[in-house]
């Protein structure tokens, strides 16, 4: 096996992992706070991609700048979805939550199909066409920037949760909603904000990945499944887990494409999932046992 090919696979996997991490961070935040699995997560990401596409094609905004607007847009979507729908089923059994979120996913997917048509799209950015060469190994500048921004955003989210009063309320509501309520936290508002932030993360991830990956309305489900997989590997509700899990899954898939038939690369990430469920059911960074 060619050493350059292995190095290339490692690097490509690591850089692409930034996107995986960012989408999983959004999902794990929502789950960690509300114990609701957002199955519309991938479809929200697809909407983030389309927002970036509209900004780029209509207003000429590069997605590497436009991602801020996409995150803002998706924050509003997440906030409204939480207030109007999710808030009603926060205490309902999981199967009801899943049905509702799958319903939201269907609506988002088909709304995108009506609005944008079925053709796969891709956003053009000057950055994605440029590459750096380290000897035989190439670095995709678009992916490098995406990776850097994903790390920054995850760091910012961590600081927000750890250092700001609102972030502390979010953590309080996650740890013990009743206790938070008793000491005067507006738990409903905190839930809506947390859902909004989760959606904003995935909106930013969508915008940042839109110059790298083609997207179409039907792409949401596989993104939801990928995020869910990562979050379970990293540990449900753990930010660090989601971040490391994203990198791990991406590198594992990339190595799978190097050493196995590339069509089997997903086998690697799902085998990883099974191994985690068997030997460490709470995930790599999960607290306590499941």
């Amino acid at each position, binding site marked *: 096996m*060619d050493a*350059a*090919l292995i190095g*290339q*696979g490692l690097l*490509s*996997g690591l850089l*692409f992992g930034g996107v995986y991490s960012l989408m999983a961070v959004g999902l794990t935040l929502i789950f960690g706070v509300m114990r609701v699995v957002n199955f519309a997560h991938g479809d929200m990401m697809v909407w983030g991609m389309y927002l970036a596409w509209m900004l780029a094609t209509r207003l000429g905004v590069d997605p590497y700048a436009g991602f801020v607007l996409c995150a803002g847009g998706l924050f509003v979507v997440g906030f409204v979805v939480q207030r109007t729908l999710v808030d009603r089923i926060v205490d309902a059994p999981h199967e009801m939550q899943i049905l509702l979120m799958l319903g939201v996913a269907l609506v988002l997917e*088909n709304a995108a*199909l009506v609005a944008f*048509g*079925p*053709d*796969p*799209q*891709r956003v053009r950015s000057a950055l*994605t*066409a440029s*590459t750096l060469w380290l000897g035989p190994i*190439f670095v*995709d500048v678009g992916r490098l920037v995406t990776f850097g921004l994903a790390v920054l955003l995850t760091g910012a989210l961590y600081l927000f949760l750890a250092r700001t009063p609102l972030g502390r309320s979010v953590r309080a509501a996650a740890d013990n909603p009743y206790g938070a309520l008793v000491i005067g936290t507006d738990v409903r508002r905190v839930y809506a904000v947390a859902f909004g932030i989760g959606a904003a993360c995935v909106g930013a991830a969508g915008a940042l990945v839109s110059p*790298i*990956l*083609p*997207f*179409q*309305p*039907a*792409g949401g489900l*596989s993104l939801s499944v*990928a995020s869910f997989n990562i979050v379970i590997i990293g540990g449900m509700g753990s930010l660090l887990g989601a971040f490391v899990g994203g990198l791990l899954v*991406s590198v594992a*898939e*990339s190595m799978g*494409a*190097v050493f196995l*038939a*590339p*069509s*089997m*690369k*997903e086998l690697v990430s799902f085998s990883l999932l099974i191994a985690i469920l068997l030997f460490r059911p709470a995930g790599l960074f999960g607290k306590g046992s499941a």
Partner: protein
Amino acid sequence: MSERNDPKTLHRRTFLRTAGAVAGTVALGFPAVLRAQAPTVKIGVIHGVTGPLAEPGQACRLGAQMAAEAINAAGGIKSLGGAKLELLLGDTQSKPDVARTEAERLINAGAQLLQGPFSSGDAAAMVPVVQQRRVPFLIDIAAADPITANVAKAVREGQQKVQYVYRNFPTGTMFGQLAVRYFNAIFEEAGVSPKRVVLMYANDLFGQSQSRGFQAAHKAAKPGWDIVEVIPWPEPPSDLSTEVSRAKAARPDIIAPITRPASAQLLLPELAKQRVDIMGVVGPGSPGLYEAGQIAVLKEHLEYVMDSVPWPNFKNPRTRAVADEYAKRSGGKTFDTNSGYSYDGMLVIADALERAKSTDPDVVVDAIKKTRFTGHLMVSAGPVVFNEIGDNPNASTALIQILGQKPVVVWPKEAAQQKAVFPRPKR
């Protein structure tokens, strides 16, 4: 809570009941009126118009609808008293299980024939239903060989009595043979002899069948070039950078991709980014490399890309007229492989009904078997006929190349609009 019990509020259940009653009245009432007006033949047209393969699925549906409208406008099926074709539309969502239930649903709704779908996986799932329910089924696109071959085998071995499944589209095997022939012709015309071809394909039923057909044809023809590496990817793919690195490591002269629209959008920019130094990209029969939407998104990445695909015969004035109307109704899309073959499919069905003078499934099947239809719009090697497997051996492809951001036929010579640019200019 009190609001929910307020009688003035429109309750969800009340709303659903009312809406259901209205919908029921509409659904039950109107067909009765229509039935009284003229005899109709109900044709279930099933394509994946949502889901990952929605783009080609919608093209297929529009092609079939336009053909049915043209047939009805010309007086319907004359041997059945001018019966009009009534299309019952189904959506596979590009999922085989849904394809199966959609076939069941439309047959229960009275479909007397079925036409469709684009995806081979969907078609394979529909076959058991039509065989069991005895409904003639014309496959207008799905190319994987086993779809018809398995039924033909079951009939030959006496496990089933009648074959209800026919296909007017080249099979994976035929695609492979034509592609190897075109590869050789193009290399010879250019006076070059590439040695190393890397085959990359979407690992679904269609991609597997296409790649097997191509490799088998290559083995049989023993040309002067080798397939040095075969790289499948899961479809839809999330990322193809490592796959492309692997292709590059095989030092290819030619990349032969079998893509879907989304994977083509990943693959081609990645080949450019990683500076894979090749003479050209030549698809042995691949969607995603020529559609107007793909050209708009991929732009220069598609320039000089070649593909061996079924293509409308634009030397036929009728094809040009249909293509103009298609462009108007589809928002500017090209009348191409998918819309074209679905259009032809409906014409073939109408021809069979005309000769059958009946909608009895076995009589219709007999008429389909005796088809010798010359009114088709696609490039082909002769009239539409069906062999013992139920495939049309005259279905053919043309080698097209994207030149000046337009698909142009470059081979076979008699259909060529321009000479191929090969090897492609260095960037």
